């Protein structure tokens, strides 16, 4: 019997998971409290869709602003740190050491400073997303094949021209990957902070319904967050694929290995 293709197996597993989600809860194996059935979760989501939609709006708003900050600042600082050798040698190891600290412990500081409204979430998630974008932009700038710059200079390109016509296009792939990661982390940062201390947003709903042990509502919120992250990831990857054509160009082989410590691992959250 020929083995089915891996992607078929993956889809099969997904379908099986959904089926189990529908059938197992309520049986002896899994009490409804731990995991309500899929249909129940969806029903509840539909019934209270106004509440969930409103919460989603709040969350999306926070995510959008935080992403603007994280990505904007991340690219700017990353370009500076990556491009200027002095800054790079000075700061990069510092940042990579700071990565070891769970940023979530800073969140109570933000709630104390900004209150439990959207500001603290945006500040926190902004920082959360900032680091990967900054580090990957720095890495991207560093690993541009020096041959390209050499060729450009030999053709008489001025510094601004080198920046706009060589450095920026060549670093776009890495920057995009960083944006994807930063965006995902921003979503994660918003969700975590909403879960911890908040008055609105999807994460807040999770916590609120958990404390009254209303599993269906909890899982409805969890499902929404799952869909949000996956949708964002798919979108970001689609954008990246558009630029895939020359993505492998302009990178030094060895720098790939060296860039890995500079690019942080995915979210610890």
């Amino acid at each position: 019997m020929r083995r089915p293709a891996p992607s078929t197996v993956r889809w099969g597993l997904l379908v099986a998971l959904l089926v189990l989600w529908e059938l197992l809860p309520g049986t002896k194996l899994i009490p409804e409290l731990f995991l309500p059935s899929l249909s129940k979760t969806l029903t509840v989501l539909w019934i209270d869709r106004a509440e969930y939609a409103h919460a989603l709006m709040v969350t999306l708003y926070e995510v959008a602003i935080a992403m603007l900050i994280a990505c904007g600042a991340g690219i700017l600082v990353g370009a500076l740190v990556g491009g200027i050798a002095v800054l790079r040698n000075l700061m990069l190891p510092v940042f990579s050491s700071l990565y070891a600290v769970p940023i979530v412990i800073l969140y109570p500081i933000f709630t104390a400073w900004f209150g439990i409204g959207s500001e603290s979430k945006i500040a926190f998630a902004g920082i959360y997303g900032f680091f990967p974008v900054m580090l990957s932009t720095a890495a991207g700038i560093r690993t541009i094949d020096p041959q390209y710059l050499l060729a450009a200079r030999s053709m008489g390109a001025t510094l601004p021209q080198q920046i706009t016509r060589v450095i920026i296009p060549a670093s776009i792939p890495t920057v995009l990957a960083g944006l994807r990661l930063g965006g995902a982390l921003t979503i994660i940062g918003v969700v975590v902070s909403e879960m911890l201390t908040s008055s609105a947003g999807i994460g807040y709903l999770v916590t609120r319904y958990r404390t009254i042990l209303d599993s269906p509502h909890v899982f409805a919120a969890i499902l929404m967050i799952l869909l949000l992250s996956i949708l964002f990831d798919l979108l970001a990857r689609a954008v990246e694929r558009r630029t895939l054509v020359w993505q492998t160009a302009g990178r030094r082989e060895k720098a790939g290995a060296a860039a890995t410590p500079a690019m942080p691992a995915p979210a610890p959250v």
Partner: protein
Amino acid sequence: MSQVQIVSARLALFAAVLAAWALLPTYGVVDPRLLPPLGDVLSMLARQLGRPQVHEAIGITALEVIVAFIIAVPIGAALGVLAAENDYFGQIFKPMLFYVFSVPKSIFLPMFILVFGIGFPQKVAYAAFSTVFIVIMSATAAVESVKQDHVLVARSCGATRGQILLRIYVPSMMPVLLETLRISMIFNFTGVMIAEMYASRTGIGHLIANWGENFQMPELFSGVILLAAVAIAFNEAVRLLEGRVSKWRT
């Protein structure tokens, strides 16, 4: 810039940050209620470190971190090695792993609470859950980093499978393994912190969250500094070890 200049520059930067922290709140440039002066924070830290309640919290957190690590690493390593060695298994699961990382694992925290209640097992289970995926990914990368050329050479020298494992795989993977350890611990520690801050009655994370809620800023900052220091210390220690073992790595 020479190494000495770089290190001095960093130290100078660090000193400047500390100085700002000490002076700005003291002179009212920044509201000292929001950002207590460095001196206050440090003396508060010293005081907290003397309290038995804090000792207990540190002990609980440390235990959670260790137990979760001991659970996550072997399981993750086994699965990771399997994904690397068994092509079919790897092809099925590797793409899924990437999606896993874009999803906030903290959303599953309520699930753990619903199943385990609030307490030690719940926090450990959640932390192990949030760590296992990075261990899997790193273990796979570690096994795949072993060059097949080296395996071929070893075979041509007449090495048995066991000898290949011990003399080729282990030394080859050592640097990556240490890096895995370091990064997994970061994930692990973060997982424990989130669990403690979210719903817990014990542990340093809980203390910090509490202090935050009650606007006890000096206490809060002292806790944050303590945790940051421990995290960084561990990270750098393992990094040093990594450096020793990876001298031969290009």
